């Protein structure tokens, strides 16, 4: 069988060629596989991880801000929002229309959702309406079976239960601006919905309050849908900030100030420097800033001459007027220019060189010693003394008492005030000091400027035995005590301080004292203090001749009314400083407010309560799910908070 044999031979040969080609093919495949998996393995492994792992940041919950009693001043209120998932909704517009039958949804929001739905992946929940009321939540829950794709989501919103009372002190949070991103590279700032402390304590302790963002490594599939969570580091709650503030006293202060057009006040502890209340009127509702507000609201705030945006208690700088007279007196005592027996005759004015300096009382005070000069606020006594003491000695005393520079309170908005001296004038104005300026400055006019906070500190240092206390508002951040260190003793003899305090006592409690009408009659709680009336502009000769009453001038030209005081007289604990802008008279406008404040401060007596760094679990804000009807928790919820 020749053919068969030959045929078989050829076939065998060619079959082996085919087999060899198959072997080569498999070898090539194996080599390629090895190349991809071994030589290029690590590169592809990296690409693979990048492919599937998405790191999602988890928004941290902002720490609470509480007052010294643990009463919340800034909390995270839970809100509910209704969202819709396109994928589950089927017909999105139909579902939204159904939702509109259940709760009121603005047509604008419907259109926005429909627009968004075209740009986002179909499984992303779209926010339809924020801050649902409990009724709305309940209605949606009931109708949920008929609302395909609709669900209720939980969220948090920063809330200030004390509303405008803490507007300046606690401040507020707002959306992150592009500029914030330049200054701060914390990636949490880029999270949608993240809000940053912009003013007040919210700003000062923003980093501590904001907490740490958590991270969730999620495996995503090719279209970005989350498949499962690989790893999770929960966001850590921001630190709780405990303030020295007494929330109720703060609210009281705010309400008292509201009797005037524009005013500010500070109540603090004479011995520790802890601030119990610090308010500035007019204010605003900080919750508006969080939620965003209308153009009209913004215009109202911007156009208010009382500058609602400004915390005048720390950044309002006023000529202290007669409240400065204690400084001049202490300088005079230290310079031995006066002592407790020194008397001056006040004819209603004081001649110096070619100039005549008027006392506020045209008819004069007659012969006065230091006590009476303070009690009746006789200007001439201080004019005369100042010319002998000199501005530099007065300025030195002012600075020792805390005036002239920022005191380092934990608020960014603090202003430094101004205490002029010879060197200052030379440096800033390039001219030499005139003795007449010393006279003007001795009664807290001229270039002298102080903030209400500085005036309170000045008073505290005089009545606490001469210790250079500094003001502070932060008790604890988390569990760390932030209080001020022991204050150093100033080089002011106690008998000098006693003399000044005697004068301040008489201002209120002597029948001829300028603030006698505002005295506290309850035994053991009497207050002492000093009125001040600061000119905003010089009284012209014309006005003086015509006897124009200051209160009849336009508001902007009226005198500022000031009062610094302390109580109780015998054992000073609470000091307060009140400034009523353009309030005309310290005794008529400021002293009555100070009285109210010191009465209230002594009644509440916040000093006897120590702050606690309480390890509260802020978990309380993470309420139950599904939503339950909120309990009435007093100050905890926004609406009940400001009763």
């Amino acid at each position, binding site marked *: 069988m020749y053919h068969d044999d030959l045929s078989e031979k050829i076939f065998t040969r060619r*079959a082996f060629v085919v087999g060899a080609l*198959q072997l080569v093919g498999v070898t090539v495949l194996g080599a390629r596989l090895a190349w991809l998996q071994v030589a290029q393995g690590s590169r592809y492994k990296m690409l693979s991880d990048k492919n*599937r792992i998405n790191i999602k940041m988890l928004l941290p919950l902002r720490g609470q801000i509480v007052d010294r009693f643990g009463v919340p001043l800034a909390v995270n209120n839970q809100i509910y929002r209704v969202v819709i998932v396109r994928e589950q909704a089927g017909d999105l517009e139909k579902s939204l229309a159904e939702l509109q039958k259940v709760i009121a949804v603005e047509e604008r929001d419907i259109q926005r959702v429909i627009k968004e739905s075209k740009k986002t992946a179909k499984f992303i929940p779209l926010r339809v309406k924020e801050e649902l009321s409990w009724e709305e939540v309940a209605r949606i829950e009931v109708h949920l079976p008929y609302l395909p794709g609709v669900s209720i989501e939980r969220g948090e919103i920063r809330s200030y239960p004390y509303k405008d009372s803490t507007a300046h002190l606690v401040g507020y949070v707002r959306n992150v601006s592009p500029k914030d991103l330049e200054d701060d590279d914390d990636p949490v700032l880029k999270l949608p919905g993240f809000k940053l402390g912009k003013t007040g304590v919210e700003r000062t302790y923003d980093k501590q309050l904001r907490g740490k963002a958590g991270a969730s490594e999620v495996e995503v599939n090719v279209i970005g849908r989350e498949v499962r969570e690989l790893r999770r580091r929960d966001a850590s709650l921001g630190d709780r900030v405990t303030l020295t503030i007494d929330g109720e006293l703060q609210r009281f202060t705010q309400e008292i100030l509201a009797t005037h057009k524009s005013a500010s006040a500070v109540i603090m502890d004479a011995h520790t420097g802890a601030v119990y209340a610090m308010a500035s009127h007019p204010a605003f509702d900080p919750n508006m800033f969080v939620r965003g507000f209308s153009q009209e609201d913004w215009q109202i705030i911007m156009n208010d001459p009382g500058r609602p945006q400004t915390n005048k208690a720390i950044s309002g700088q006023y000529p202290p007027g007669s409240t400065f007279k204690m400084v001049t007196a202490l300088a005079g005592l230290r310079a031995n220019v006066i002592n407790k027996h020194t008397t001056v005759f006040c004819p209603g004015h004081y001649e110096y060189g070619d100039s005549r300096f008027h006392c506020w009382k045209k008819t004069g005070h007659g012969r006065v010693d230091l006590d009476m000069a303070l009690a009746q606020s006789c200007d001439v006594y201080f004019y005369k003394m100042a010319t002998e003491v000199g501005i530099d000695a007065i300025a030195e005393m002012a600075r020792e008492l805390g005036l002239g520079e920022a005191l380092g309170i934990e608020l960014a908005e603090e202003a430094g005030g101004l205490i002029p001296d010879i060197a200052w004038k030379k440096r800033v104005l390039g001219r030499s000091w005139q003795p007449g300026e010393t006279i003007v400055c001795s009664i807290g006019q001229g270039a002298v400027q102080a903030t209400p906070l500085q005036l309170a500190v000045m008073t505290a240092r005089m009545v606490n035995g001469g210790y250079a206390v500094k003001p502070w508002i932060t008790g604890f951040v988390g569990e760390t005590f932030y209080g001020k260190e022991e204050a150093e003793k100033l080089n002011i003899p106690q008998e000098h301080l006693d003399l000044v305090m005697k004068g301040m006592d008489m201002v209120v409690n002597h029948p001829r004292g300028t603030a006698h009408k505002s005295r506290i009659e309850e035994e053991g709680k009497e207050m002492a203090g000093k009125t001040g009336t600061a000119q905003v502009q010089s009284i012209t000769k014309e006005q003086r001749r015509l006897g124009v009453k200051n209160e009849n001038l336009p508001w902007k030209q009226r005198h500022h009314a000031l009062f610094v005081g302390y109580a109780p007289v015998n054992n000073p604990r609470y000091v307060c400083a009140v400034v009523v802008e353009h309030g005309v008279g310290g005794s008529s406008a400021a002293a009555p407010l100070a009285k109210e404040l010191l009465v209230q401060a002594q009644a509440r007596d916040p000093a006897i309560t120590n702050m606690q760094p309480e390890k509260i679990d802020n978990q309380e804000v993470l309420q139950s799910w599904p939503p339950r009807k909120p309990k009435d928790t007093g100050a905890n919820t926004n609406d009940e908070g400001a009763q």
Partner: protein
Amino acid sequence: MVMFIEDDMRLSQRLAKMNWWLIFLICALASVGLASLYSAAGGSMEPWASRHLMRFGIGMFGMTIIAMIDIKWWYRLTWPIYFLGLAMLVFVEIKGHVGMGAQRWINLGFMQLQPSELMKIAVIMALARHFHGSTPEQARRLSFLIVPALVIIAPVGLVLLQPDLGTSLMIVMAGGAMVFMAGAPVWLFIGGMVLVAISIPIAWQFLHDYQKQRVMTFLNPESDPLGAGYHITQSKIAIGSGGIEGKGFLKGSQSHLNFLPEKQTDFIFTLWVEEWGLLGGLGLLALLLLIFAVGLRTALRCKHNFGRYLALGVSVNFSLYVFINIAMVMGLIPVVGAPLPLVSYGGTSMLAALIGFGLMMACGIYRHSKVTR
């Protein structure tokens, strides 16, 4: 007229003569498919693994029956089968379902039948029958190659109309291999390759856009990793990230997260090596090589030409699937849409593979059948 000498064997004898090695290898290969499909579904028998297993069971039964049937019957049925296949191709052309921009399927109710897959077997059978009676001298004459050329060109033309370039090329290659085995002159193949090289620019104009795109993508896949090159890039990432030991069963992140397209069909090899690594990949290649070897051995031991050509033809056809599929997912050749038989999910490819192996086994069982010319 060539006839087989009647060679009656009892059923038990035939069963004993079955190539149990091949059956073992086929089962092993199907198991790889089963495991991968189980994993592709995220660790579930549904929707693929269970049906794969069921089809395999039915297919194995059919394969055994095919192997049991005397080779002479297959010899006699060759032309009817071939023309039935052609008829089915015409049928899909006329009334086929539209899918993937190409008409390829006949809906049989329980499965989508792709006649082109079965046509490959029919072409191999037809060529085996044609060369069965030939002598090497005849095979060298070009006139003797006219019939094989027609046998190949008729289905290729119909498949190209679908249009399915990959399958047409595979039929041409499988048919060419048959002609080569029959002893056709070597210069014919070299000349053919030259001709192909020349005709590429011409053929280019006749390609569909998506086919052009596939070729372009193949040439530079990373240029557009999220566009057309996406499949290849993702597949390479999946394979490469498997490393030597693999990510572990059910842990192939690329595949499970749908980064991998068509993971249950054409890219099943990717899923396998992503999870089992180089070791699993080489194991699978070794398994395939053994199957090729069984095909070669069956062909060499066969005493009649029809069986030789048929057995090796089936083996070549199977290896073409393997090479094209695996080379494609590893980025060696353009994406052509070829499954990995018995591993990929798909009824027709499994059916075609098992029919082929059935015929191969029949060649083994009836290898001593006497041939007269």
